[in-house]
Structures are given as structure tokens and as C-alpha cells.
């Protein structure tokens, strides 16, 4: 099973002809993802290593039955690309691009929910279901197939914890990087709900960080809606207020969004929170063995 991407994924890469789009699009294909099309306006009719390129997403869908989109276009054009994918009937949409303006994301967030389209990102590493499909820039070779669902606002920190899990002999159903921006297409709660109903997933790791209140909402959701055990890690205990820590969304505003508050909210709902990535992986291993 797994969530969001799997063997039925037929991927169209928006921005396939750019250097990043090409590199990762082909990498995703080499992991077994069915990359069926690329879209770059003005380059319709060309191909990238045998993958046909179209001028519009609509044409790509008509010709190739693409059902999932990956957005790799530069930030000023990303919103346009996302709307194009939505209106061509594609979903999930995974937007890797960093730097999409927050006001545009407010509107996109509202629109994808009205249209019932799953969107992941922006400013995210993508989605990987080991052994099935990889959509994004997550290095698939460090993960193995297994029962642990992983959802995170960060990229490399997710790889770190996935790697520690692999060293303890554990694998993943799906790894979802939801992105580090203030507003993203799918929240922790959206992804937790998918893991809860996915038969392959037996445990979940949530990797949060400072800023916003999505971890607190996740804590409430875990308590009331989830039967599967969740372990969490929160980054940014040492972050000073008012400073953006790398991710646009990682900022403590006034007294809101601290790592301590998130940890307490999760622990109050019975979620174990690891102090270090290593301890977090060990907590998961203990769950699996239990």
C-alpha cells in the first residue's frame, strides 16, 4: 500500500527540461517511478532521455494519463504551474520549489481543498514510498521498505532519522516531506490521517520544528483519531525568537511556536518525543519490538 505515491503513480514533471528537473526526474525514474511526461511551455515535442515533453499539463494528461505532478519550476512561476496541474485534473501535486510567496500559498491552499486535490509542499523534499515510487529529491538509497510512516517539515533531518532507523533494521512505508514554509498544501494532520488508514503503516514518526501550531494540532489529532503509535522529534529548542531558522516557516513569533510548547503538547497527548535524532529512532525501534 503506502500513501500518496506508489506503483500506480504516473508522474508528469513540470520543469523537466531544467537542470534540477532533469536530474531529479531521471533519478526518480531510476528508482522505478513511472515518469510519463514533462511539461515546459515552448518545448513541446522534445524529449528528456525518452520522456516526452509537452507544452501544457492538459496535453500531457491527455497523451500519457499522468495522475501525479511534480513541480520543479522557479518560485516566481510555481503558483501558475500548481494551478495548471490542478485544473488539468492531476493530483497529488508535489511542489519542490523553495521561495513561493506566502500570499500565493494562502490562495492555493484554499483552492486545493475546495477541489479536493492532495498537494505536498512547497519547499519540500517530496514523497518516497521505498520500493514503489519516489517523487522528489529524497535519496531513496538510504531508506528501506517497511512499516514506519515518516512525516516531516525538513529534508536532511528526515534523511538523518530515516538513516538511523535503517541502521536499527527498520524500514518505511512512505516518507512525506510536507515542507518548511508557513503555509503548505498538506499539514501534519492531513498526512497522519492517510497513515492511519494505510495498512502497510504500523508506526509513525513525526518530525516537527519551531513556528506555527501544526504540531499542536497533530497532537490533538493523534489523541482523538489515531490508533497507531506516533513518536516525534522537534527541532529548534535553541532558536531565538523572531529569527527565521533557514526555513521560511521556522520562526518563533512572540511567545508562539516554540519547540518546548510543541514537545509539551505532544507529550500531554501521550506521544513520546525524542531529545536527539538517535533517541527518536531508538524510541521507534522499541515500539516495533514491543
Amino acid at each position: 500500500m503506502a500513501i500518496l505515491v506508489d506503483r500506480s503513480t504516473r508522474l508528469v514533471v513540470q520543469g523537466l527540461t531544467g537542470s534540477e528537473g532533469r536530474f531529479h526526474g531521471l533519478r526518480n525514474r531510476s528508482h522505478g517511478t513511472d515518469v510519463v511526461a514533462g511539461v515546459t511551455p515552448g518545448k513541446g515535442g522534445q524529449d528528456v532521455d525518452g520522456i516526452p515533453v509537452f507544452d501544457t499539463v492538459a496535453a500531457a494528461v491527455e497523451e500519457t494519463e499522468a495522475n501525479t505532478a511534480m513541480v520543479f519550476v522557479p518560485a516566481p512561476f510555481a503558483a501558475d504551474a500548481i494551478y495548471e496541474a490542478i485544473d488539468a485534473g492531476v493530483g497529488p501535486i508535489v511542489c519542490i520549489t523553495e521561495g513561493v510567496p506566502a500570499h500565493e500559498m494562502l490562495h492555493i491552499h484554499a483552492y486545493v481543498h475546495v477541489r479536493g486535490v492532495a498537494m505536498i509542499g512547497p519547499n519540500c523534499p517530496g514523497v518516497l514510498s521505498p520500493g514503489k515510487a519516489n517523487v522528489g529529491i529524497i535519496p531513496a538509497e538510504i531508506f528501506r521498505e517497511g512499516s514506519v510512516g515518516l512525516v516531516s517539515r525538513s529534508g536532511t533531518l528526515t534523511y538523518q532519522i530515516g538513516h538511523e532507523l535503517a541502521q536499527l533494521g527498520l524500514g518505511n512505508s512512505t516518507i512525506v516531506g510536507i515542507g518548511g514554509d508557513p503555509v503548505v498544501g498538506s499539514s501534519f494532520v492531513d498526512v497522519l490521517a492517510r497513515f492511519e488508514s494505510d495498512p502497510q503503516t504500523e508506526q509513525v514518526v513525526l518530525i516537527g520544528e519551531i513556528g506555527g501550531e501544526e504540531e499542536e494540532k497533530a497532537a490533538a489529532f493523534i489523541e482523538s483519531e489515531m490508533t497507531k503509535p506516533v513518536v516525534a522529534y522537534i527541532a529548534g529548542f535553541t532558536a531565538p525568537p523572531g529569527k527565521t531558522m533557514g526555513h521560511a516557516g521556522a520562526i518563533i513569533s512572540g511567545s508562539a511556536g516554540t519547540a518546548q510548547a510543541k514537545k509539551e503538547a505532544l507529550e500531554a497527548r501521550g506521544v513520546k518525543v525524542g531529545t536527539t535524532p538517535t533517541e527518536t529512532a531508538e524510541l521507534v525501534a522499541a515500539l516495533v519490538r514491543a
Partner: protein
Amino acid sequence: MDLYEFQGKELFRRFGIPVSEGRLATTPEEARQGAQELDGPVVVKAQVLAGGRGKAGGIKLAATPAEAEERAREILGMDIRGLAVQKVWIERASEIEREYYLSISFDRGAKKTLLMFTTQGGIDIEEVAVSSPEALARLHVDPLEGYHAWHGRRLVYEAGLEDPGEQKQVVKIVGQLHAAFTGCEAMLCEINPLIVTTEGEVRALDSKFTVDDNALFRLPEIASMRDLAAADPLEALAREKGVTYVKLDGEVGVLGNGAGLSMATVDVVTFVGGRPANFCDLGGGGDAQGVVDALEVITGDPQVRSIFFNIFGGITRCDEVARGILQALGQLETRHPMVVRLDGTNAEEGRRILRDAAPPNLYVEPTMLDAARRAVELAA
């Protein structure tokens, strides 16, 4: 990006929001000149990107140009929450009858724009929210619907504003502030206080304005308002070099790849009993130039005693990063001991490269925790 009061007010003025006339001054003489031009009593206001200016003595009345010069002399150079005052805003003094509060913010939780208005202005809004929540009118704007005049009307009625003349003016200002909020792609536009003068005119007496960094590419005029001289010098250098850097107050310089891992690295240093000197994210890559730039910024901090280089190779391969580090060490003179932890793709190869080259003062550790402990030891 946070704007100064005078910059925020300039934007307010462009969107039609009434503000008092003023002049910017960087010297006491300019302050006197400004007060002369304004012809009448003025307020001399410190321009710093920090709250609590009034309490810190950064806002003072002056009846004459000579007094304005004197007050500016006292305020310029003053330290407000660690920031030196380099500019003052000389503004025509207002006859204040009442003080209200109005703000528009980016509500991440609701994923909507949030309007807030209360007639209990001039004080800390978080206090009002706790002590008398019924007095604080809050209303979201649905992103798909957009702003309409009814939003302003409902806000004003729900806050219990009764004077029809004031109602009319405030409703208009809410619309104008919303136009400024969307037009300037703000994360926050706050007017505290929004005053009513003795003549019954409603006017913005202060401004707090934060613009989305990700939108600055299409707002060149606002982007040019950034005051590099006011930033921490190391953070300014980092910005110039394109390095993501936040100064902290410790001895262990930290360099990681990726925002989340870098934050976790800073936390782990604290967890093992050390004090991180900074947050620094090398980004996804690990090329020599990126490493040189980041090291230059980190070692520019005289408090730094050791450096912890924490890399997880994903797409970036650890052998490439190891070569980048060696190349960087060749280009850059650094006396600080450096602890390197490489993990992930090609980590073995990366560690071997570093061990073979064996540069002096470089330690290779297998795990994040071991490396953090070593870096903290070396900083002691």
C-alpha cells in the same frame, strides 16, 4: 523583513491611511532642521526594529527645534534591546483623544488573513486578548472570497465602536490597510495605537510592518528598504555571501546542511552541555565555495572556539563534501579546531579522504552525538 516605523508609515500614506507628517534624521542637527520645517511641537522617535521603544526612553516630546535637537542627541546612539539607534523620526505631535488598535496578520494556523480591532489600543495586544477577549474583535478573510467592506463594518461593530464618524473612518482604514497588506505581501501590518485626535480625526500613530521575504523579488522598492547597517555585522556579511546564518551567544560554531538538520545540530550541542555560537545552513550542496563562505562568516565571530561540521549526505555525496572541506581549508586560514561528522551517501569514502589528508586540528567523528561532545570539549 521588518520595516522601520517611518518606512511602514510611508507605505501606509501611499495606500491612503492618514499619518502625521514627519522627517527622518540621523544627526541632532538634522532633527532640529526637521522640527523647524514641521513648525510646531514634535515627537522624536527612535527608529529601531524592536518593541518597547517608549519604555526605553526612545520616544520624547519636543516643543521647539532646539529641544528636538537636544532630544535627538539623547536618543541617537541609545541602546534599545541590543540595537543602537542610528535614526530618529521627527513627527508633528498629535493631540490624542483616544487610542485604538488595528492589525492584519497572516494567520498560519487558520491559513487565512486575520483582522483584529479593539478600542483598547496603545497597550500590548496579547494582554488584551487574555484580559478582555470580548473587547477584541477578530475576523478572518477567506482567501477565495477576498476582502469586502462588510469585513471592516463587522469588525468595527463587534468591537463596540459607537461614534458614527469614527466608524466610517475606521472602516475605510481597515480596507486601506488590507490593500497595503496584500499589495506589499505583508505578514503583519499593525497600527498601535490608531488614534482619534481632539478634532475627531482617526490616524495611524505607529506602524509595525513585516513583508514576506519570498515576495521581495517582485517588490524591488521594499527590498531596497533593507538597512544593512542596522543588522548584526556577521548576519549582514552572511546575507552578502548568500549564507543562511543566525548569530547565537556561545562558543561552538555550527555548520550543517539543511535547515532542520542544522537546527537539530544546534540543539544537540546544547543538549551535551555546550553553547552554540550560531545557526548556519550550508544548504543542500557542499561545494568548496559554499564551505569557504560559511566558514568565513562563522569564524568572523570572535567568541567561536571550535567548529562542528555536521553533514548528512543525501543527494550531496559525502566524498564531495570532504573534498570541499579540504579545498576550503586550503583557501582559508583558520586556527579553530574543527570536528567533522559525515553520514549518509558515501560517508565511508568521505571520512577516508579526510583521514588520509589529515589536516591539523581536524577531527572526524562517527555520530552526531560523539561529534557534538568533541566540539564542546574543544571549545572549553
